């Protein structure tokens, strides 16, 4: 029998490491990921330049230089969000998700691999963009900022973690919704529209609600705020959102036909 000899020679590979390797390869063999990262660089550069300039021109109090890249998260999060989203929605749009599921038939493993790959890329991108933003802001602040290695390091690292979690959240949401229009709408509302609305309306209740949305929770944590909750709690809230989206995506992926 052929099968007997085949099993004997080829027992390794595959599984989750195989799925991760395949997702990694797929990510870098189309242009979307590069475009998203270029967009991230542009958004971070422009935003932090203006952040520093405005603080200087308006005579804001001196602040840690890392606040500039942290504030840029409101824009940069969409660069990694779109990157994570297209890794899922492009496969549904081109029906290549069927090929993916033939290669890796354990469905949750596909989602996990995509979350790990885009999460890791978003984390690394976040750290590097954080460094870039710090440098740009340092120049445009022209002395109206403080530089403390530990503070900046912590902020940059947390920016990476926040963006990584945004990617995981987006992957889950994309498996749940499948179509890019839907994902972009929900992502935009969750990470920008609703927070802006709640902050604009103000009031204790609405602001408390906002503090439990991913952007505000992540920002509190990155800025090192001790109120309304200690730093790690903000990160936990973002993790919770990512986990909920991940489980929602997992459930839809498990139930529906490809």
């Amino acid at each position, binding site marked *: 029998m052929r099968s007997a000899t085949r099993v004997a020679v080829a027992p390794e590979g595959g599984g989750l490491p*195989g799925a991760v390797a395949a997702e990694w390869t797929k990510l870098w063999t189309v242009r979307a990921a590069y475009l998203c990262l270029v967009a991230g660089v542009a958004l971070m550069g422009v935003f932090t330049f203006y952040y520093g300039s405005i603080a200087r021109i308006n005579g804001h109090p001196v602040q840690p230089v890392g606040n500039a890249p942290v504030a840029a998260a409101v824009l940069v999060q969409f660069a990694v969000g779109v990157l994570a989203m297209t890794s899922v929605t492009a496969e549904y749009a081109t029906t290549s998700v069927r090929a993916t599921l033939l290669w890796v038939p354990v469905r949750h493993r596909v989602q996990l691999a995509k979350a790990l790959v885009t999460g890791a890329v978003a984390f690394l991108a976040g750290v590097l963009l954080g460094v870039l933003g710090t440098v740009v802001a340092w120049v445009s602040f022209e002395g109206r900022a403080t530089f403390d290695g530990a503070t900046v390091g912590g902020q940059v690292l947390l920016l990476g973690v926040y963006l990584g979690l945004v990617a995981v959240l987006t992957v889950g949401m994309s498996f749940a919704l499948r179509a890019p229009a839907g994902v972009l709408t929900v992502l935009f509302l969750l990470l920008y529209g609703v927070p802006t609305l709640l902050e604009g309306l103000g009031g204790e209740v609405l602001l408390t609600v906002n503090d439990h949305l991913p952007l505000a929770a992540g920002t509190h944590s990155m800025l090192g705020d001790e109120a309304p909750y200690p730093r790690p709690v903000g990160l936990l809230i973002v993790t919770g959102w990512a986990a909920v989206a991940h489980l929602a995506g997992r459930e839809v992926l498990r139930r529906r036909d490809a």
Partner: protein
Amino acid sequence: MITLRGLTKRYGDTLAVDGLTLDIEAGRVTGFLGPNGAGKSTTMRMILGLDHPTGGTALIDGRPYAALRHPVREVGALLDAKALHPARSARGHLTAQARSNGIAVSRVDEVLELVGLMSVARKRAGEFSLGMYQRLGVAGALLGDPGVLVFDEPVNGLDPDGVRWVRELVRSLAAEGRTLFLSSHLMSEMQLTADQLVVVGRGKLLADTAMPEFLAGSSPTAVRVGVPNAEDRRALAGQLVRNGAEVEPGGGTELVVRGRTAGEVGDAAHALGVRLHELRTVSASLEQAYMELTAESVEYGAGAAA
């Protein structure tokens, strides 16, 4: 070997696949036939774990597809050849596939060479012709050197050279002891390729038989004989019927005779002094046998309207 037991798929009120039970054996080519909407693609998708059965099981060497640790090494599938990202190159696509199952990346160039796509390995797949898509699909199916191959319409869009190439490839893969399960609408092609035939209609199994029996069972071989003179035609027909043959008019000056060989018909004509213009044996064609079998179950037939 692929084993289906009571495999059923229901979409709302429609039974797309209705309790299919059959074994698709190794070492031969099993052709999968049926009218559009008969449930062929749904059956294949369930075998490959893409669609969840409403009932029953589809097993590959005793296990469901999703339980295979290295599915690409065990099952080669060609479903929709265009189901890939148009911006990714053929090589990029196959490299991702190889890495997903721990297959050496050097195997990618081997299969690209095998299907004749080496020169366009770096080209975006979106610029491929349908025939090139099919070749890339075959490359993907062969990548893991699997023992089971499932092909849905593999010759769709291929030129005559490509059709012959797929036929010879499929025959040689079966000769190596692999399980080949393929669907096609091209009856003449299927007749040349398949050893065993599985026919479905409206989701139900209509036939699961070896090719020769399938052909013999539905449409017996006939002899067509051309007799230019009308009186001679009547005389010959009368003589043959008296001898127990089945005779019917074949249109124009022809008669269709069943139950006698061409030689026997020729002898009878000679004995009567009847002049012939044509005498030939018509073998049963798969197309005809298939049409007879599925006439009842065509979902979108052309006949009934108006």
